């Protein structure tokens, strides 16, 4: 699939902007702070509803305006038009999402409809950040190929919050409440079993694709691998329930649930079986983070039979010329690619046919060349 046309209103630094893309490679070139990344942020919001920057919608609205709106026309996609609007109304900020003119509210209705993979300089934090960063990344990847997963995950978070609330209540009142705990443990078990099973199955496929991608970009020897380390090793319901049951006293003491998918870890190890992050160079970490995203894309394409849109936000600066070349070669498989970059010299280095350059100037003015 590809983006044909993007339209922005009061979005970040853009008052009103329309952009026509080519279905091959699009470069957005401009100085720092001109609004290049805002273009791909809009596309990613239309695809995932939330900003990859993790900023609230209120900060996306252009200064002094009461709302933003963005829409895009898609090609080679089951759906033709995607729209997201956010407006301040009497009782707060209201967000509306439409696909082909029909309003959608359920996350499973929009997830995976417009497939995008986003490469960002901050992806490197998936490699060295806290376990939560890796969980969030893998969860989002699974959601794109399994529409039921996100719903189970949201249910699980709710169950966990309720269970923790009961634990704290028991601790404060010093009065046991097994009747209620049994019920929430049952629900916890049901959801956790699905999540653990799906994470296991996903990593089984993903791990080899990840190592392969890294090899292709980095070349040479010594390649990292990714390993799933679940907090509860089995997806078997009885096993999960028993683990929870046995930990009840310590959970009550701590006022929180000490085991379960919320504590799962994905370890990235080097060829010697040690933590990759502790020994890798900045460039190697960068390549590992790019490989994570490329592998995500490969799995999505394999499962959906669709080509996703690659959004690439200025990730070249840390790569040497050879690796940059390897990466471009690897990515150049007919997907629509939207790059942002500060230096237009890079566009010449890259051997793409049918590309379009956009020059972004201060004040959010886009000139096509």
């Amino acid at each position: 699939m590809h983006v044909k046309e993007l339209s922005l209103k009061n979005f970040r630094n853009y008052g009103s902007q329309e952009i026509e893309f080519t279905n091959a490679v699009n470069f957005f070139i401009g100085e720092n702070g001109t609004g290049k990344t805002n273009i791909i942020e809009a596309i990613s919001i239309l695809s995932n509803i939330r900003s990859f920057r993790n900023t609230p919608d209120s900060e996306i609205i252009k200064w002094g305006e009461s709302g933003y709106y963005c829409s895009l026309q898609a090609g080679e996609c089951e759906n033709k038009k995607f729209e997201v609007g956010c407006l301040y109304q009497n009782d707060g900020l209201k967000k509306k999402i439409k696909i082909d003119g029909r309003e959608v509210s359920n996350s499973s209705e929009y997830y995976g409809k417009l497939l995008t993979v986003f490469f960002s300089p901050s992806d490197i934090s998936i490699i060295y950040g806290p376990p939560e960063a890796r969980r969030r990344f893998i969860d989002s990847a699974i959601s794109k190929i399994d529409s039921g997963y996100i719903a189970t995950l949201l249910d699980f978070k709710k169950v966990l919050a309720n269970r923790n609330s009961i634990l704290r209540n028991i601790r404060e009142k010093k009065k046991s409440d097994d009747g209620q705990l049994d019920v929430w443990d049952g629900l916890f078990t049901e959801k956790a079993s699905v999540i653990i099973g799906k994470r296991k199955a996903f990593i089984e496929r993903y791990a080899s694709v990840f190592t392969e991608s890294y090899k292709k970009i980095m070349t040479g020897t010594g390649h990292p691998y990714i390993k799933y380390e679940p907090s509860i090793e089995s997806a078997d319901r009885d096993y999960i329930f028993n683990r929870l049951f046995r930990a009840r006293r310590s959970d009550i003491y701590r006022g929180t649930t000490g085991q379960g998918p919320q504590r799962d870890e994905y370890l990235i190890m080097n060829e010697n079986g040690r933590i990759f992050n502790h020994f890798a160079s900045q460039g190697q970490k960068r390549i590992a983070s790019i490989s994570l995203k490329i592998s995500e894309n490969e799995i999505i394409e394999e499962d959906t039979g669709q080509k996703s849109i690659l959004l690439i936000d200025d990730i070249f600066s840390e790569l040497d010329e050879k690796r940059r070349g390897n990466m471009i070669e690897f990515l150049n498989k007919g997907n629509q690619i939207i790059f942002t970059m500060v230096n237009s010299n890079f566009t010449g280095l890259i051997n793409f046919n049918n590309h379009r350059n956009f020059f972004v100037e201060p004040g959010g003015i886009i000139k096509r060349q």
Partner: protein
Amino acid sequence: MNGKYSSYLDNLIKKLSSLPGIGPKSASRLAFHILKMHPDEVTGLSRAITDLKENIRTCGVCGGISEGEVCGICVDPSRDRSMVCVVEDARDILIIESTGGFKGLYHSLNGLLSPLDGIGPEDLSITGLVERCRSGGVSEIILALNPTMEGDATSLYLARVIAGTGVRVTRIAHGLPVGADLEFADGATIAKSIEGRVSM
């Protein structure tokens, strides 16, 4: 007057917009409509509201709405007294009654378990339900709670509590709405439908 048209109007708008589902704009539309209504109609409306509050109370048996000690459904001799349908609140009784498809009795819980909101079993009308099961005559409890996380937790909790009384506990089917198309159903609904399939 506080800088606006009239303090009477402001007051009514404020009162109306405190109702669920009514924002300041709808409230002002309603207030202006009331202003245009015939005085008799307005008196009728306000009387209907006070009458409702003065004459309706909670049924001592099922927790539904009632004009007397016990509601019309609970005293109706033609109802099947062996089946009790458990609902979240009295409004759900009205919804199920309007279908005419259920001829048993009801029990309103007045809420759902929600530890996050501080609502535990002691805040719901569960003791009353267990008493009804123990007092004999009831052979089946039908749980008709919404398929949300809180609804599921409450159903599981009730099933455990009622299990001790020997009464059969069932829950309403979850899945595709009647007349719906598979094509437009979301994944979770289809999964539930397959899970809850019945033999033919």
